[in-house]
């Protein structure tokens, strides 16, 4: 689940800092795994693009649901 470069231009409105790719934890159906996603280096707000949500992330969700 790697983000495309374009999404990283976003800025955290609360901290006024551009998002940076960082290690975050994704969880679903009791499973957790680390992924690199754009997030605010200060407050940790993680961004999930629509492309990711309806693409790879959806695939993983479905695979976990069918386990």
């Amino acid at each position, binding site marked *: 689940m790697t983000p495309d470069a374009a999404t990283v231009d976003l800025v955290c409105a609360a901290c006024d800092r551009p998002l940076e790719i960082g290690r975050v934890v994704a969880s679903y159906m009791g499973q957790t795994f680390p992924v690199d*996603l754009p997030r605010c280096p200060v407050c940790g707000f*993680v961004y999930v693009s629509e492309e990711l949500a*309806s693409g790879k992330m959806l695939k993983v969700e479905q695979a976990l649901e069918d386990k």
Partner: protein
Amino acid sequence: MDPAQVKAWEARCTEEQPPACRAACPLRVDVRAMAEKMKAGDFVGAYAVYATVVPFPAILSHVCDHPCEAACRRAEAGGALRIRALEQACVEEAYGTARRVIQKARKPKRIAVVGAGLAGLTSAFDLAMKGHAVTVIEADAHALETLRHAYDETILPASAIEVEIGGLAKLGVTVNCRARVTAGDGPLGLDTLVAGNDAVLLALGARPASAFAEALRLNDSGRIAVDPETRTTSRPGVFATGLHERLGTAWSPLRSITDGRRAAASIDRFLQGASLTAGRDEETGTCLYVNVTAHAPQPPVAAAQPGGAYTHAEAMAEAARCFPCRCLECVNACAYLARYGAYPKRYVREIYNNDSIVMGNRKANRMIDSCTLCGLCAELCPNDLAMGEVCLEARRSMVRRGKMPPSHHDFALRDMAFARSDEVTLARHQPGHDASAVAFFPGCALAGSSPDHVARLYAHLCGRLSGGVGLVLDCCGAPSHWSGRETLHAEVRTGLVATWERLGRPTLITACASCLRHMDDLHPDIEVRSLWPLLAEVGWPEGARAAIAGPLAIHDPCAARHDAASQDAVRKLAAGLGATVHELGGAARTTCCGFGGLVTFANPEVADAIVDRRIGESDDDYLVWCAMCRDSFARRGKRAAHLLDLAFPAADGGDPAERPDPGFSGRRDNRRRLKVRLARDLWGDDVSEPADPSRERRLIIDPAVRADMERKLILVEDVDRVVLHAETTGQKLKDPRTGRSIASARLGSLTCWVEYEVGPVGVVVHRAYGHRMTVESSS
């Protein structure tokens, strides 16, 4: 799932039964597969099918007595397929193209076959193919001597015989002619053969065998006594053919080949030390259901050549007359069953396997949740197999074991919870009454689709019925039933019974066919009636006329497939409005609109395929009497009017068949407003208009964005909550290129994202999407 029940379901589907031709053929030639290839011109492929079971194609294709043709179902529609002639044309063109692969026997054995007739040579062929060493001993000068004299050269050319004998030699079979085997221990004595081989087959043909009287037990007619099932003789290791004669049937090449094949199978079992009897039922017959009436009669193709042999083109045309025999009655009628490329027998097995998986992927989950439970398959199936029953039981099992994928039904269950919430439910006596003889239960679909109809219909019923007409706005619990949530479903039912008790046990009158089915057995004392027959009794309001002039094709809700009283009443009511209505194949064979079984949520593509297929059945506007059906058709762009649209047209004079699908958000708003409107207008309650999220925050959502949200099952109120959360906490992202805000909030089990822009007149929503997975910064 109960394995016995699963077996019973499987047994009902006839699709895997052999076609009649194959069942009638003692060699089980797959004629259906051959014909399918030949009609496409693939004679080589057809030959491969033929040659897998026929030992001497060049011979048999000329002289087979084709019991298959007597069984062919095409006979009922123009004349049986000329199967033997097809096989001859196929062999003629493709002889020898199939490579024969000799199996590797783990321990090759030596077998002596006495007699080079068709039976003996078939045994030799089969045993050689199994990898054994076979020697054939023949008293006559040539192999297949009888056959050479039995037919005219024009029927069976000598070359056909030679080529097959040559083929046998290539398999390594040795044929020694002019050698007569006798009893005793001479060089060609039976004892010598028994001593020198692992098994001996006496394929002497239908003749007395007094020469072996000392060695073997003979029967009353002086022939070797043979066990009809196993072809064993009185001497271990010695087998015999010739049984067909004993059965009193005339000599035929096909029977000889069958006889030899059976003996070879016994010998192979004997050589492996296996049981000669286990699992050898030669069951014939078939119960494959074939809807012959679906095929127009077509006479057999006549061969131009004298003698009746087909040319390539003639054979292709004749092969095309094969239906082919299949059942698939349900699959042909159901977009869901067609979707997964097989048929119920296979599906039941897959569903059962899915249910039994302990570790690993449950690949059939979505398939199980894609059935609308509409009952059409059972209607069409010769054995009434209902895939809905299978899928519902599987869903319940998934829920019980915690294996139901949450995403499939979450939204529908949330929506049901909303439909049961205080915000939209109501249960009251008619204004000015303190008892209800009956209570109108419109169902949440009608309230969501056209609240105005609920209000006007209720007023009408109050005016025509005495004893107090109560009103119940609630949900029958169909979604909990369809999703296999038994506990939740029981809870919904208990709630409904309590409401009914509170109103003094009135007769419930419902406008929804699904509600009728789901509430029918709520309580032994509850009487639930369909609105439509009652309405037919009390009549429409004075002067009601159909608001549509053109012809209407009537679509009945699948839940009312067997509700003849409602079906009749609806047709009478439509006629009473002056509408011109015609059938779409009749109520019993109606299809689902795609909403049933919650398929819209679990598998929108299948739901769309189902409704689109129905839409394709007529260009006329559809007349429906289920609000969910109407919204489904409207969503897919089909002009459809509810019966109530005809009788109670909108005040603004809008085209009743063009009323748009309100969508999930719209249905919620409609239900909210309905409750407020009725409480205020009928009961004089002091209530304010419900908060409309899009108005309060002034969300501006383009229709295309709204449609996209619908598709993703994101409600306007979800978007509103995300924006509210972002604007009050300041937690959001900014896109410096566009100036837009991007925010998210966790709503139940979904993270909802909204990209928006705060403008001068309101919040412009650019897009919304969601995911179920959570993501958090590690620290």
